[in-house]
């Protein structure tokens, strides 16, 4: 989509020789335009919910709320959180993950842990969990159970394929290249419980409440800058917390090969190529937004005005 958007933007901008937008500038405007539209989904979602409650929204193809949910869910990710220390887990961010979260939707917690420890060997190969201090058989570990292994920079959430002896498991990964990795095993039948987000002003009182203190079947968490703290504090195993969140869209990048004396040619095969992640239905919005930014940048009030008018009409049409 990014190439067609760029071609359209250039065509409109060049129609009256208003100016040229370089690939670097285009990428900056494209990033900003995509973020604008992405953030606007949430405001529009809220507006349409109010309209739905006022019975001015339809169903099926007229169900705008559902359409917006689908657009937002394109950015939904679920993954295990990296354990920082005891019951504190890192939120997804650039330092340990490609996906930076935009908002956390729900945190899920495994109620019980079958076994946990630290791997102490790699003799079984890159697909083995070896811990000579454990007897996995007597712990009740069986094929199909889940193993969370904390390696440098992330969590591998794996499935047990076979038990080899009593202290070794074969799992569906070939990325376990080192020993000394903390791990935890969860029964496939263990249910996940949703942890509730609680504000810092409430958590202290909640923890001492006799009726509503967080328990393993009704856990809670508080959020800080880069971490979440789980309650009760017995929730502290590797991979015990899974987060479903909405990530930020990846920065779009129109990549090219430079031709001598000519225009840059679009190169979709570049390693850093990144298309827009918004649905195709937002293509015209993207073009309008980019034109606005381009218009502002090259100080052409006409372009800005034209793009702005187009967007206003679009918004009016969509409600």
């Amino acid at each position: 989509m990014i190439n067609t958007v760029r071609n359209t933007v250039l065509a409109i901008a060049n129609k009256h020789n208003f100016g040229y937008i370089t690939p670097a500038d285009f990428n900056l405007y494209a990033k900003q335009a995509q973020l604008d539209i992405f953030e606007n989904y949430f405001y529009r979602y809220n507006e349409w919910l109010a309209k739905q409650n006022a019975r001015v929204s339809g169903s099926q193809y007229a169900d705008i709320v559902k359409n917006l949910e689908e657009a937002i869910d394109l950015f939904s990710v679920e993954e295990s959180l990296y354990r920082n220390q005891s019951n504190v887990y890192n939120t997804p961010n650039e330092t340990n993950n490609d996906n930076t979260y935009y908002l956390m939707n729900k945190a899920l917690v495994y109620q019980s842990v079958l076994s946990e420890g630290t791997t102490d060997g790699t003799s079984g190969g890159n697909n083995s969990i070896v811990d000579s201090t454990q007897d996995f058989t007597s712990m009740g570990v069986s094929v199909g159970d889940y193993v969370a292994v904390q390696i440098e920079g992330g969590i591998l959430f794996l499935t047990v394929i076979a038990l080899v002896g009593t202290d070794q498991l074969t799992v569906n990964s070939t990325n376990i290249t080192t020993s000394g990795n903390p791990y935890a095993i969860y029964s496939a039948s263990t249910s996940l419980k949703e942890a509730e987000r609680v504000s810092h002003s409430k958590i202290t009182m909640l923890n001492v409440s006799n009726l509503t203190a967080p328990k393993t079947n009704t856990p809670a968490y508080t959020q800080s800058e880069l971490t979440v703290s789980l309650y009760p504090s017995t929730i502290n195993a590797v991979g015990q917390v899974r987060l479903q969140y909405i990530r930020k869209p990846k920065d779009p990048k129109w990549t090219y090969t430079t031709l001598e004396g000519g225009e840059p040619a679009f190169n979709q095969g570049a390693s850093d190529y990144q298309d827009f992640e918004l649905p195709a239905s937002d293509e015209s919005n993207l073009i309008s937004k980019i034109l606005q930014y381009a218009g502002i940048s090259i100080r052409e009030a006409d372009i800005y005005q034209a793009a702005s008018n187009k967007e206003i009409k679009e918004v009016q049409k969509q409600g």
Partner: protein
Amino acid sequence: MAYITGYQYYENSGSSPEDKNWGSYQYISLEDIVNNFMLMYVGNDKLVNNVERYNVLFHAKRGIQELNYDALKETKVVELSVCDNATAVLPPDYINWVRISLYKDGVLMPLTENVNTNFSKSYLQDNNCRVLFDEDGDILVGSGILDGDRADGIQKTQYLGDGKMNGALGYQIEGKWIFDYSIGARYGLNTETANVNPTFKINKASGVISFSSSMADQIVVVEYVSDGMENGDDAKVSLNKMFEDYVYAYIKYAILNSKFGVQEYIVNRAKKDKSSLLRNAKIRLSNIHPGRLLMNMRGAQKWLK
């Protein structure tokens, strides 16, 4: 798929305890109540929205507690040995008593609650009647004479009855005891205090039941109500399904009633909903069966002299 297989129900899938699931179908768990409420009654297009789960959990537990006090008829029964000092410690989840009985000679004898005080603390005093204190300035407390007299059987009681064999004197003929019936009418009997069995009083502050002296070393059966919180083990908290809808209505009302900006008519509707569902559930649980009514009505045509 069935909620629970026959094997799980009867034998707990071979695990211990075997009786874990017996009769479990009568009940809905606290977790299910909260989950169902959050799913069905909370949302952007529902009366209740933007509510934390711990709020719902709190009101669900409060609703269950209230039901346990008077509506549920979930009476717990525990058998205790009374100590030498004629006291027994209250059960750990005790809230209020329903009936306390002496079990003796194969018979349960319901005991009467003593409305008079039969226990007390005692402040230690010197010869000049001055109260004594410890080094922290707290009053020195000892056991009261009242308590001692009760345990020793010295304390007089207003609860009197004819006693065994109507209090009549007996005489022995050929190794057998013969007792006469009392002759003549007895007037002025205070039925409120006419009781031949031992008595008891709940010492709430000390957490014990103080019995009259004859209860020492006897077996007592305490029927009591708890609050259904199962000592804080949420996994065990459950509710009879007859009250399921009531609890949802109770939670909804409790939340709407304490929320800012909810129209009064909505709060009132929720309140009526709650009250009528409680009434319905109580009627259902009263178990008025035609068969039972028939048994009672059999005596309707009986001739009375």
